């Protein structure tokens, strides 16, 4: 906080920092983030989860996650099956590991899709404004006034199950909010003097958007996207619980939880372990998002 005050006569617009300190800015952010122990914990957890998801095949082959053995049905955790076995006698550890792939894929893919679509649309309408802005925002009002879950259910019911359709449904429900957020931060940036200067210098809309507006909104975008991953993992799990998941026998965390629900009282590990996975992943992404926000906005740091 003092730094900003002390250097208030130094170049301080975001553009200047970007132009002159592009590299050091990211280094600075990383340095701040490293100091945040909670955020680093989140980063470590999420990296571990991603690693496990990527290396799932090396740890346990996918066929283990599908191998049924009715004798082991609902077996509690043991030395042989660390997480126990599910209602078909399949190894829960293998299912959790391979399930992380789909869950993370859905979480990251939808966040990325939202980022791309929402970010571009938001930047465009925020910068161009006028009729286009009005039109797009009214259209988005339509989407956002329909409850998310119901909308996603209707879309999946119409398009059928499958990872792609679920990703589309989840992204669709999240884009309006994202567009709004990007739009307002772009509106803020667009008022800055250096944008005026650039515009006066005859730069094109696309040039200003891509060179000045978006790079400066990038902090907000990163923070929001990180937080989005957490909420999308949860949304996917909820949809899966409501019966809109991916097709079996492909494991997925939300599906594992909803499969385990039936056995909550007879074999609670079936719901608790994947539930914990979801919780840990979304927890990690949330604290990482919080940490990034703090690191990107030095005023909030102490």
């Amino acid at each position, binding site marked *: *906080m*003092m*730094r900003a*005050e*002390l250097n*208030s*006569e*130094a170049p301080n617009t975001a553009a200047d920092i970007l132009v002159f300190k592009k590299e050091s800015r990211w280094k600075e952010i990383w340095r701040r983030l490293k100091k945040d122990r909670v955020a680093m914990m989140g980063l470590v957890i999420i990296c571990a989860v991603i690693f496990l998801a990527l290396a799932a095949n090396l740890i346990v082959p996918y066929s283990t996650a599908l191998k049924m053995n009715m004798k082991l049905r609902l077996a509690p955790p043991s030395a042989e099956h660390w997480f126990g076995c599910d209602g078909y006698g399949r190894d829960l550890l293998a299912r959790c590991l391979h399930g992380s792939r789909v869950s993370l894929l859905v979480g990251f893919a939808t966040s990325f899709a939202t980022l791309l679509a929402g970010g571009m649309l938001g930047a465009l309408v925020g910068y161009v404004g006028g009729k286009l802005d009005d039109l797009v925002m009214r259209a988005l009002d339509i989407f956002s006034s329909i409850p998310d879950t119901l909308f996603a259910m209707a879309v999946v019911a119409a398009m059928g199950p499958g990872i792609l359709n679920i990703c589309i449904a989840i992204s669709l429900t999240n884009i309006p909010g994202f567009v709004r957020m990007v739009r307002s931060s772009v509106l803020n940036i667009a008022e800055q003097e250096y944008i005026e200067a650039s515009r006066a210098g005859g730069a094109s809309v696309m040039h200003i958007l891509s060179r000045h507006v978006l790079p400066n909104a990038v902090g907000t975008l990163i923070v929001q996207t990180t937080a989005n991953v957490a909420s999308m993992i949860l949304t996917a799990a909820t949809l899966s619980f409501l019966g809109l998941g991916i097709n079996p026998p492909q494991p997925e965390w939300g599906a594992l939880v909803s499969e385990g629900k039936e056995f909550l009282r007879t074999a609670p590990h079936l719901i608790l372990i994947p539930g914990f996975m979801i919780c840990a992943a979304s927890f990690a992404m949330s604290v990482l998002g919080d940490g990034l926000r703090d690191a990107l906005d030095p005023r909030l*740091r*102490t």
Partner: protein
Amino acid sequence: MSKPAVPLLRVKNLSVEYRSDLETVKAVNGISFFLKKSETFGLVGETGAGKTTTALTCMRLLPENTGRVTGGEIEFEGKKLLNLPESEMQKIRGERMAMIFQDPMTSLNPVMPVGEQIEEALKLHNEDNKTKDRIQKRVDEVLSMVGIPASRKCEYPHQFSGGMKQRVVIAMALVCEPALLIADEPTTALDVTIQAQIIEMIRELRERLGTAMIMITHDLGIVAQTCDNVAVMYAGKIIEMGTAEDIYLLSANHHPYTMGLFGSIPNLRTKARRLTPIPGLMPDPTNLPEGCSFSPRCFKKTSVCDEVSPGVYRNGTHRISCHLLKAENHWEAERQ
């Protein structure tokens, strides 16, 4: 300048740091000054010289998580402020010692009518149980004193212009008739024409109410208009101090920094000058240079400047901390 038995405010060897998990900023490095009743003391320097930190330390309003007093003491009306419990400090703030902040745009609560904000100070320090009517009357009084019609007291800050807001802030500070008023760059954020009005008003009110004042500014014109004594701060230290006449007297000895500040025409009668820029930047407060902290920018620098902290040259009320002048003794020691 005769030394009173008990000064109103006495700052002794004060050092303040800002600590974050990444770095330590040495904002104030052992400054001492005192202030007697009804006196106006000017604190001049560039942004980042430690003026505001000094003021906030006097109010004990340093940011809790980061700001830390590492040495020295502050005595106000005979009380050692730095050891006072927070509840005692609350009684002093607003009642005995008030502050006007730099930016009137942000220093008023946007969701409270201005009258209520002024009233709050009165209510918080209502030891003699003034009635509601009495309090309202006082609010009206103080508002008209700063030139705002009392009828506007139900309006919100956003309905006022910048200058008017600063008047409200001043009214809020003066409503309890404090013994000391700290004005932290009260006009920096305002238009030039408004600046003059506000300064004029502050001067008038101070004279009328007999309040002592610390005027923090980087505008030497304002100092010339309002202050009895002036201290020039650089990198958390006072490098020159004396009466207004001492500082503004062209023929007297000056610290090279002060000379730089005045440029070539340090003239008491010329108003509304901004500081002429001195080449270079203030040293990084996380990493202050050895010796005189001004030496990297000094145009009269000698080899000793980089190694030893300068002592204090003394001439009557005028004190300068520079190697160019023969130091009588060390600054701090002298002021004991």
